[in-house]
Every structure is written in structure tokens, then in C-alpha cells.
């Protein structure tokens, strides 16, 4: 479970970024977060991940069986001097595992994200979508209990994005981590999640919340159904209302 109560963040520059964020993502569920640019979405994820300090309020990330929290950054942030396999292995090695101990886990996760044939390739030899897959594999290799994703597909074309949506959903249904997924794209937010949170413009709070009733697994055709369009319209209105100047 990931939850925040009255989470506040002001940067030393004096900029008030988060003004009391409240939400709960229950264990094993997939939640999307949409919000206008600069409203503090990345800041929120960084605080949840322990990379950034909050200035007030509280949050908790509860993980079963001492599993960890992983983070898929907005950019793939692969190390260019490491092969795909070595990049994916990095989190395990930082935990003290040897190459041999990590091998099975790396092979398995690369297979799952469809990069088995590219384990020896280097990041500059990969397409944008493949880099993102490698980045997701790196986040999954530690068998996380929760996954934070920060606009992971923003730089991809429509087709690659749709493919990765299906793959991400398959991975999620299989491994059932708790997911908090940030995006600018309302259709993406709805298609992936069981719940969509709408954040207000800076200083950010959670302004609205929409349950997504469509059953899993979802087919790509869902995007063109009238129910989907209606929900997208409501999310859009909520977003528009909170970010009115």
C-alpha cells in the first residue's frame, strides 16, 4: 500500500510545490495520476521513493515480504557503458549479489520484457521503446512490491506506446505490484489503471478521483468504446477545472 496524508513540499527556493496531498493506493492495485505540467508529480514520486525530503505531512509505503520499491524514471537513465544485461543487473549488484547469483533473475526479466535477444547490446544500439523496456526490466529485476512510474512512455510513438501498455498490464497481472503511474495522457491513464487521480496545478493536491470500472484484461479496442470516451471526458473536465488560472 502507498499512501500520503497532507504531504507538503516547498523547495529551498521558496517554491511551494505540494500543498497537502492525500491519497491511498491499496496493495496490488494500479493507480494513475494525471496533472498539469509542473504541478509536482515528479516531486511526489521522488518523495515516496526516498530520494527527496518532504517538508510536512506523512506518507507510507508498505511492502510485503521485505520487497522493495522500484522507480521507472521519465528517461530510461541506462548507463551507456553497460550492456543491457549489466544495466538490468545493476540493482542486484548494488545489493551485493554477484554476476552469477543475478544471472537467472536477469535472464528471466529480460525475457519477460522481450529483450532476451538484446542482452549483450549497448543502450546506444537500442530504439527508444527498447530502452524503456530495459529500464522497466531494471525496475522489475528486484521483484518489487511497488512500482512508481514517471511518464515512462512520454517519448514514444503511439504504436510503441500501445504495445508497451499491453505488456505492462501483463506484467502487472502476473506479479501484482502496487503501481502508481504518472502520465499526461488521459487515455493512457484510464486504459492502464483501476483508479485515476487528478492533481491540481501548483501547489499540487489531489483534486479529483475516478474509479475505472473496465474489467481486466483490457483489449486495445476498449479505447474506442463510448464508455471509455465518456470517462476520458470527465477526467479532462476535472483536469481543466483544477488548472484554470
Amino acid at each position: 500500500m502507498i499512501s500520503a496524508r497532507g504531504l507538503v513540499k516547498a523547495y529551498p527556493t521558496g517554491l511551494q510545490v505540494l500543498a497537502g496531498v492525500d491519497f491511498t493506493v491499496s496493495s496490488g492495485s494500479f493507480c494513475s495520476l494525471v496533472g498539469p505540467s509542473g504541478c509536482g508529480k515528479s516531486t511526489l514520486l521522488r518523495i515516496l521513493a526516498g530520494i527527496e525530503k518532504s517538508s510536512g505531512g506523512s506518507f507510507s509505503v508498505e511492502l510485503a515480504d521485505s520487497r522493495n520499491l522500484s522507480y521507472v524514471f521519465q528517461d530510461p537513465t541506462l548507463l551507456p557503458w553497460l550492456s543491457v544485461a549489466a544495466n538490468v543487473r545493476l540493482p542486484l549488484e548494488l545489493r551485493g549479489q554477484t554476476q552469477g547469483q543475478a544471472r537467472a533473475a536477469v535472464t528471466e526479466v529480460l525475457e519477460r520484457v522481450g529483450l532476451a535477444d538484446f542482452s549483450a547490446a549497448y543502450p546506444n544500439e537500442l530504439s527508444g521503446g527498447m530502452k524503456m523496456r530495459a529500464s522497466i526490466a531494471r525496475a522489475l529485476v528486484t521483484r518489487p512490491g511497488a512500482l512508481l512510474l514517471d511518464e515512462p512512455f512520454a517519448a514514444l510513438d503511439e504504436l510503441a506506446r500501445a504495445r508497451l501498455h499491453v505488456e505492462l498490464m501483463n506484467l502487472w497481472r502476473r506479479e501484482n505490484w502496487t503501481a502508481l503511474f504518472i502520465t499526461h495522457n488521459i487515455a493512457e491513464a484510464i486504459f492502464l489503471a483501476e483508479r485515476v487521480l487528478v492533481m491540481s496545478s501548483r501547489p499540487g493536491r489531489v483534486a479529483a478521483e475516478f474509479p475505472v470500472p473496465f474489467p481486466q484484461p483490457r483489449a486495445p479496442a476498449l479505447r474506442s468504446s463510448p464508455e471509455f470516451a465518456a470517462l476520458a471526458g470527465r477526467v479532462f473536465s476535472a483536469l481543466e477545472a483544477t488548472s484554470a488560472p
Partner: protein
Amino acid sequence: MSRAAATGFRRLLPPLLTLLLALATWDLAVRLLDLKPFLVPGPLRVGRAASDHAADLSRACLLTGGAALCGLAMSLLAGFAAALVFCQARLIEVALYPYAVFLQTVPIVAIAPLIILWMGPGFAAVVAVSFILSLFPVLANTTAGLTAVSSAHLDLFRLYRASRWQTLFRLRLPHALPHLVTGARISSGLSVIGAVVGEFSAGYGSDSHGLGYLIIFTSGQIKTDLLFACVLSCTLLGWCLFSAVSWSGRRILAKAHLEPV
């Protein structure tokens, strides 16, 4: 002709033509303007002086080159070590870096006699001057490489609670390698200049002379053609060292899958 040889030839042709053109212009200018040989000797005269003193010149090149190589090696070691210390604590960097800049601004020609006074003339003193002159680029570039890692990568390491050593060995050092190579390339030319300047004030002994000594000696004797040959030898030496460092740097970076900066 094989394909590799053909492309190599095509790569070499333009600089070779430039060289020929420059030599021809030089020769023509000397003839047409009727310049005195002791002021500006023509290329043929310089070539003759070089071949007459081939043994002296090549021995001098070896000595100067050896001193420069030692100075450069010391710069690489010391610059790298100091950069490692700098990147570990911001306080140390802030406290010491301004003084490291002195290395860059100190008038080496004035300092060289002092160093020789302290260390006594000889190979070690020449190496020391070469070392001082070539240290800063390695130090500055490596420090920049170690500290200027992207914040996204630092976040990644922080996320997995990487230790300071893990971050140093797995992130900072690989990131700094291309910067170190750049520093070494700049330093390679400077190390030759440093060795020559060192030799201006310090000889190696009675009958082994470096290029710096030959330059002072020949300019005192107004043997302008030999002076030209010495200066060209210095330039060629620096060029060789620079090319060797660049080539090995490129090889190392390619092997490590790193982009040159």
C-alpha cells in the same frame, strides 16, 4: 591496393598536400624576398642541417620525449588521485581547487630555474617542470568528469541505497574516463613544452643534451638552420605524443563503450 590502404591514403592525402604547399611557399618566399639564411633559412637548408646533426637530434628527441613521457605519466597519476580526493568532499574541492589553478597561471619559465635550484640539474628536474605544466588539464577535466554525473543517474543510485564507494566505482569513475582522456590529450602537448622549458635551465650532464638545450645553444651561435630543425623536432615530438595519447584514448573509450567528450 587494399581498401583499408586506399582509405588510409585518402585520409592522409589532404594533410600531406598542405605540408607540400607550405614547404613550397616557404621556399619560394625565402628565394623571392632574398632572406638571409641566418634570419630565415629555407626548408632545404633546414633539412640539410637536420640530416647533418641527425644523431644529436634523435638523441635529444629521445631524452626530451622520455622526460615528457615521465612528466605526463606523473600528471596522469597525480591529477587522477587529486581529482578522486576532490570529488569525495565538496569542502576539500572548494578549499584546494583555487590553488590548483595556480599551476595553470604560474609563469613556468620563471619557476623552472628555481626548481632546478632545488632539485639540482638532471633528468628529475626536467621531469618535474614537465609535470607541473601538464598537471592541471588532467586534474581539472577528471574533477569535472567525476562531479558532473547526471542527477538522474545519481537518483538511480540513491534509490537502491548505493554506498559512496559503489557510486564512485560504478558511476563516477566510468563517467569520468572520457574527461580524463580529454585532459590527457591537452596535457600531452604541454608535457613536451614543459620538458623543453626545463631543459632550457637544466642539462642532463656533459654530453647528453635535450632539445631545450640544443635550442638555447644553437640560438646563441646563430645556427638558425639547426635552430629551425630543433624547433620542428619539438613540434613533431609533441605531435607524436598527442597522437599516441589520442589514439590509445580512443581505443580505451571504444572498448569501454564510452563516448569521447
